[in-house]
């Protein structure tokens, strides 16, 4: 196994072009486990740790450009206001040591349905900035996950950053595991309210072959909020709306039975989380809305 250590982003792209099968490594959360247990034996490892810019982020007007290697602990500490869903997701990643090394680029590169960041990215709305020696492109997050542990990257492409929409409303994220920390998700759910566009977005993890949105649930809720004028009134949500939203979120799952949980449980739990998060986010929205109205 050759260990490639580019000193710059340009060198990294050149190395990836020369060795398209090279496996990029930054924090190593997924890659090192696979190597240690002999599940994977790449010809080349492409170490991105010398490419300092990957650990930087910029807060723009509408999005945060988050370098692929920005560690989860940074997201928790510094981007809680801009990316509340992703910050909550970051809390659930492994242990403090791993949160200090691992970043969103690794989650996206592995594209496991159990990656903790995915539901938060799907719910917030994001684009993946992929680049190769041929050029740079932005891949919408909805089009990024193409299969079990497969993504839309070309063999010569690397993930440089992810552009995540700044929160304009409440966001929530929850993960179910059979212990209270350091656990791979049995399932996960993220919800973001986008008052500026009067839409909601969702993300589901570990309950389908890829991370997915609960689109029918989103469309139902968008319509229900619009029809009843709830964005404007800030009135409480009818329980029937929350119940139907939960049911549709549950229906968006396409899970399997495995050692971590049953398919039936995953569907059930996603419904519970969807209902709870809708309650939490809507109450938070109402609180802020009614405060504004009063002011």
């Amino acid at each position, binding site marked *: 196994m050759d260990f490639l250590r580019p000193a710059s982003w340009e060198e990294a792209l050149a190395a990836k072009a020369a060795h398209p099968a090279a496996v990029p490594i930054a924090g190593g959360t997924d890659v090192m486990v696979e190597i240690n247990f002999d599940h994977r034996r790449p010809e080349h490892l492409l170490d991105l740790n010398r490419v300092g810019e990957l650990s930087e982020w910029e807060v723009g007007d509408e999005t945060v450009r988050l370098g692929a290697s920005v560690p989860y602990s940074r997201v928790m500490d510094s981007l809680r206001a801009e990316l509340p869903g992703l910050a*909550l997701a970051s809390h659930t990643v492994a242990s403090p040591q791993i949160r200090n090394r691992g970043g969103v680029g690794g989650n996206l590169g592995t594209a496991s349905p159990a990656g903790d960041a995915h539901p938060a990215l799907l719910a917030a709305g994001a684009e993946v900035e992929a680049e190769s020696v041929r050029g740079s492109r932005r891949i919408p997050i909805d089009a990024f996950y193409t299969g079990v542990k497969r993504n839309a990257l070309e063999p010569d492409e690397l993930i440089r950053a992810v552009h995540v929409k700044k929160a304009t409303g409440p966001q929530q994220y*929850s993960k179910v595991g*059979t*212990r209270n920390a350091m656990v791979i998700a049995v399932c996960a759910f993220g919800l973001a309210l986008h008052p500026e566009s009067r839409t909601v977005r969702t993300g589901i993890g570990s309950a389908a072959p890829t991370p997915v949105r609960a689109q029918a649930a989103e469309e139902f809720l968008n319509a229900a909020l619009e029809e009843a004028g709830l964005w404007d009134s800030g009135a409480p949500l009818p329980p029937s709306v929350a119940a139907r939203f939960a049911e549709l979120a549950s229906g968006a799952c396409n899970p399997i039975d495995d050692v*971590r*949980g049953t398919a039936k449980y995953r569907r059930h*739990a996603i419904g519970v989380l969807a209902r709870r998060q809708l309650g939490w986010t809507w109450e938070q929205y109402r609180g802020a809305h009614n405060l504004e109205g009063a002011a």
Partner: protein
Amino acid sequence: MPQQPRVTPTELRQGAGTKGGIGESTLRPDGTLKVTGEFAYASDMWHEDMLWGHTLRSTVAHAEIRSIDTSEALATPGVYAVLTYDDLPTGVTHYGLEVQDTPVLAHGRVRHHGEPVALIAADHPETARRAAAKIRVDYAELPLVTDEASATAPGAPLLHEGRDDHHSGHVPHPNILHRQPIVRGDAAAAAARADVIVSGEYYFGMQDQAFLGPESGLAVPAEDGGVDLYVATQWLHSDLRQIAPVLGLPPEKVRMTLSGVGGAFGGREDLSMQIHGCLLALRTGKPVKIVYNRFESFFGHVHRHPARLWYEHGATRDGKLTHMRCRIVLDGGAYASASPAVVGNAASLSVGPYVVDDVDIEALALYTNNPPCGAMRGFGAVQACFAYEAQMDKVAKALDMDPVEFRQRNAMSQGTIMPTGQSVDSPAPVAELLRRVKARPMPPEQQWTTAGQAPDVRALPGGLSNTTHGEGVVRGVGYAVGIKNVGFSEGFDDYSTARVRIEVIGGEPVAVVHTAMAEVGQGGITVHAQIARTELGVSQVTIIPADTRVGSAGSTSASRQTYMTGGAVKNTCEHVRERVLEMGRRRFGSYHPAWATAELLLEGGKVVTDGGEVLADLVDVLGDEAVDMELEFRHRPTEPFDLRTGQGFGHVQYSFAAHRAVVEVDTELGLVKVVELAVAQDVGKALNPLSVIGQIQGGTTQGLGVAVMEEIIVDPKTARVRNPSFTDYLIPTILDTPTIPVDVLELADDHAPYGLRGIGEAPTLSSTPAVLAAIRQATGLALNRAPVRPEHLTGTGPAA
């Protein structure tokens, strides 16, 4: 050839400033080294020119081996040896703790997933691993035996044909390894007197010891044709007894030294790499190190027996138990390991710490193609406690009685006759332990609520995973109490040896304690130094690394080491002290009449009278002489259980603990947060109170683990292990571990050294059923299995 490894086991010295004798919480001599990463664990062993051994294991659970082709592996550059069954040096090709049924390397057949088939030694661990992948094994799969039904069905494949072990004569089927009935009184007649009869079926999952230091050792070939083996184990001499015949060496040519052990919990009672490492070292003439990785470790040791238990209890209206009937089926897996003794424990402790005169008990262990199971903390008593404590709650409910009060009405006490006919002849404060945990103040309700703020999710089920802000959360409280035997039972000649030397070094009297006791983290060496200080009045104690140059210390298991090897150190110290006093009398007796008339002690480096008068300095008494003695120590003898009635004086001592569990359950998601696990335990005498609390908290946490998460999942269709990793075999993290207040009683057992009681296992028993009882109370569900998983609490189990 260099004889000494470069990295060797750490010699531990207690600082000269330490004064602590028994009863003080002296610090562990290995504590700072472990915390700072300086301590040499077995996996840190290193030797010039050493090779790395690797084990090829079966990928299927039950198959005939048609052929093994090692040629390509052998041709790999860097490979020094590839060994299969055909390369074994002697006719002794099997080993085992009690029944020698385990092949050193598979011979013509594999009986479980992960069974060792071939060994490789190479100059790099990676080379060894890759060479192993080039060995071609032709398996022809055989039908599987996975449970009692398939084990005893007509025409069932026999795991071990032609058995001639000492259990084979009395078992009803050759796939039943051992069966122990216990019959006392007349259960049928007593049942007729019962006002309520409650029965239940329970399942206890396969738990792993999950010690953090994987199996490892270093075998160094010696010039005399023997071998020096540095290894992490629980009982050096038991290993030696099994290793030497396979190698064809006399025991004195297999010299074993304990290397740093990173936890054991029963998982190191059976051999792992010991024989394999020695075979490779002797074949190649080079030192060979074998270290399992975490994946292999799950196949490298036995697990706790999964069990199916059926119980029936009766009681009268006034809350007195009338009778108990039970049947306990333990899955022993493919090889015997410690299963027969686990059966004996499960049977003899199946009634729990209660007075029940009329019982009909049956416990048995199966041979199956599942992973071999054997010793783990609690050893058969754990599974039984899970079931009988669930039954106690059910009976109490049927009587509309408080579950603690019901238990107290039936609690055993000193003088109670066990189902085996054995009288409990030391304190058995069962009712008092329950009273103490019940009397504790409750942890505050809804600790997650914060004035005007977002809820503190750390206090909620799911923790920082943010699954609830209080929705669906219900509190539950549950109680349990258990009984565990201490020491090896059923007539086993259970002894420990200690060598103690006292001499003057650098102008100060120093005691040197040498035993073969495996320090696996329990703190035995701390206690040995305390005992030597108390008995010999010295402050300086050196603990020599455990090895086979001294006699056997028995196993670090069965909660026995403080009693047994601690007892041996005490016993030898007493004899050494007598010798020292004789020297004193010879040298100084004429100077003071008290030498002849008073009770003399050694204290603070001096010979003193029991009245406190100083007669001489130890330095002067000893001069340049040393007193050096090695003696064996035995507990009182026990008897085997009768094979038909189960009667017999089978156990040395009993140990009791009670728990109260307080849990918060997210009843919609099926997630559990254990808020508090209060314990009360009688320890007889706390030799080191801090270590005692550590043991009790550790055992409690291990019991919590199997209540809500820990389970090795074996696919019933293939008998393959599905979760051999710490990714999917979950053990509690600190965020899952509740507050564990510990209430320690010290009621002396007059049969034991210092009156102490073995403590390591009892807290593991009652922790699990207490947590389950609390979850039952919160959810109203029956919950007849451990661990309980979210799908069991939400009715979302797998599609049938």
